[in-house]
């Protein structure tokens, strides 16, 4: 143990001796890890958000399609949906998008029926109960610099300003859906968007047996051919594949940077200089054996790569969770850039940390140790002469 500690002490001193060279490697190395970790953190964060949000979503959402596009659905469809075997509660939903020219953000306006909104987690205040009240997602509140008790003015479909009193603000957790949300009493929302009488945006359909969601969806499609039943798992899969696809694109681009770095590291290590060979020869001549020299090289590689890993992870964490992934968000979040600022909830995943460590530390340590192995296995005499 003492021997290993002494070699570690020597390795630390050796690393500090080559400050300039090692600092340059550390900067590039940390940057590479920051990018990789940011992509993985953000992708994971978005998927987690989606999962968390959809946990409270209905098993089935039924929309109406006209000419292949989502259109308002007649509320009379509710009784047909309720008659499908296996279907429980059927609830019409009233919602729509609102572009806020003041903040250049898209908000989602959702109508709250009496007794609804149980699954929404409020950070502060209460849900709207009466006409002229509203609750906001934290992103909307930030974008509009609005607090509880303030009035929020929106422009309705008649191009008239309508004022709502803010009664509550949603929690930042699971912000993917609630972040841009503006909750109004259902009647207010129908007036605001000028919904035609007898129509809703879509239906929330409860299915008694979760195993039968796909069967129920097929039956609905059979009875109401102009509808599109969407299951919760389909939405989740879509989120998953969209974020995976986007992160895949980013990682592909990033792979070339990683490869370039590996080539650089390999070149540094394989191009073991005469001076380094001489140093290894001297160490062996004065009594270090091959294992000692290799241990020294492993420590040197680990000191540098683990420092870079730590810095990279910290930078990535700050970038993703504090600075809203400024560099990656436009690619990974896609159209949602029009959203109010979305803060992904911090989440530590050991598997992800293992992947990042494996992809970044292993190649560097290997490219440091392997060439030294060749030198350390040779006679000290020949190494000192080289």
């Amino acid at each position: 143990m003492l021997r290993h500690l002494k070699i570690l002490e020597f390795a630390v001193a050796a690393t500090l001796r080559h400050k300039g060279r090692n600092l340059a490697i550390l900067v590039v190395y940390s940057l590479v890890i920051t990018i990789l970790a940011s992509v993985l953190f953000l992708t994971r964060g978005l998927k987690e958000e989606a999962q968390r949000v959809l946990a409270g979503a209905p098993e089935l959402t039924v929309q109406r399609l006209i000419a292949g596009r989502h259109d308002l659905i007649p509320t009379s469809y509710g009784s047909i949906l309720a008659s499908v075997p296996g279907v429980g509660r059927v609830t019409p939903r009233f919602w729509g998008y609102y572009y806020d020219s003041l903040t250049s953000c898209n908000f989602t306006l959702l109508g709250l029926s009496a007794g609804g909104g149980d699954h929404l987690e409020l950070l502060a205040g209460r849900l709207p109960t009466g006409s002229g009240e509203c609750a906001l997602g934290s992103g909307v509140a930030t974008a509009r610099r609005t607090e509880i008790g303030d009035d929020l003015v929106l422009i309705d479909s008649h191009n008239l300003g309508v004022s709502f009193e803010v009664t509550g603000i949603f929690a930042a957790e699971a912000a993917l859906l609630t972040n841009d949300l503006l909750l109004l009493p259902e009647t207010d929302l129908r007036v605001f968007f000028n919904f035609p009488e007898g129509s809703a945006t879509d239906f929330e359909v409860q299915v008694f047996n979760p195993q039968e969601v796909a069967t129920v969806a097929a039956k609905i499609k059979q009875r109401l051919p102009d509808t599109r039943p969407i299951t919760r798992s389909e939405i989740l899969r879509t989120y998953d594949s969209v974020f995976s696809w986007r992160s895949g694109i980013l990682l592909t681009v990033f792979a070339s940077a990683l490869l370039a770095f590996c080539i650089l590291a390999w070149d540094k290590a394989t191009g073991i200089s005469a001076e380094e060979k001489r140093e290894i020869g001297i160490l062996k001549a004065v009594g270090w054996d091959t294992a000692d020299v290799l241990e020294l090289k492993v420590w040197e590689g680990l000191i540098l790569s683990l420092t870079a890993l730590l810095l990279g992870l910290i930078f990535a964490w700050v970038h993703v969770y504090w600075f809203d992934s400024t560099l990656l968000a436009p690619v990974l979040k896609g159209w949602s850039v029009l959203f109010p600022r979305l803060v992904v909830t911090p989440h530590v995943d050991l598997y992800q940390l293992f992947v990042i460590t494996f992809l970044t530390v292993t190649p560097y340590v290997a490219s440091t140790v392997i060439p030294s192995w060749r030198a350390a296995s040779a006679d000290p005499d020949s190494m000192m002469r080289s």
Partner: protein
Amino acid sequence: MAVLIKTEGLEKIYNAGRPDEVRALREVSLEIDAGEVVVLKGPSGSGKSTLLSLLGCMTRPTSGRVTVAGRDVSRLPERFLTEVRRETFGFIFQQFNLLRQLSVLDNVLLPLYPLPCSLREMHRRAEALLDELGLSLRQHLKVRYLSGGEQQRVAVARALVNGPQIIIADEPTAHLDSGLAGELMEILGRLNGQGKTVVIATHDRFVYEHPLVGRIVPLHDGRLEADPP
């Protein structure tokens, strides 16, 4: 006196089987007693440095045998060969072979890292030696700022810090003026006085004619010439 190092029919060929093959040593048989001061003398290319490397377990012979303190080391696995080298020999090289980016003290500490002694003990031993060799005031300086003579003394301190039985010195005066060369021989004389065996490879007349030297082993073209009377 007991025989400490013995070689039998020692041969060393570099780059064997290649166009640039060099037969550095041929049929060298030699005995060195404990406590002796032996000089391997010969012109450049005569094989003295190669023989010194073989005696000091720095490389293995192509054929023949090297015995150190009765133990055949010529076919020892690398690990054991290193152990013999670490426990038995102290090396002083022609080019000093110090790590230039390290301080005087750190260079002297190098042989102690693989040994089972604490950092405190390592420092105690190295500092005592540096004090003895008049380098204690320079111990924190990088060796590249030292004069040739001082660097040679650092090399001597490094060679002695693990308490070796045999000192191997390859052209130790090559980069020293006569004053410093005399100083070095004086140090080697002191070590011999403490019972250490000293083997020196040199073609410097000052060294091989020094009264300290007990025996001269002349080499020519990798062969041993008869010992002078």
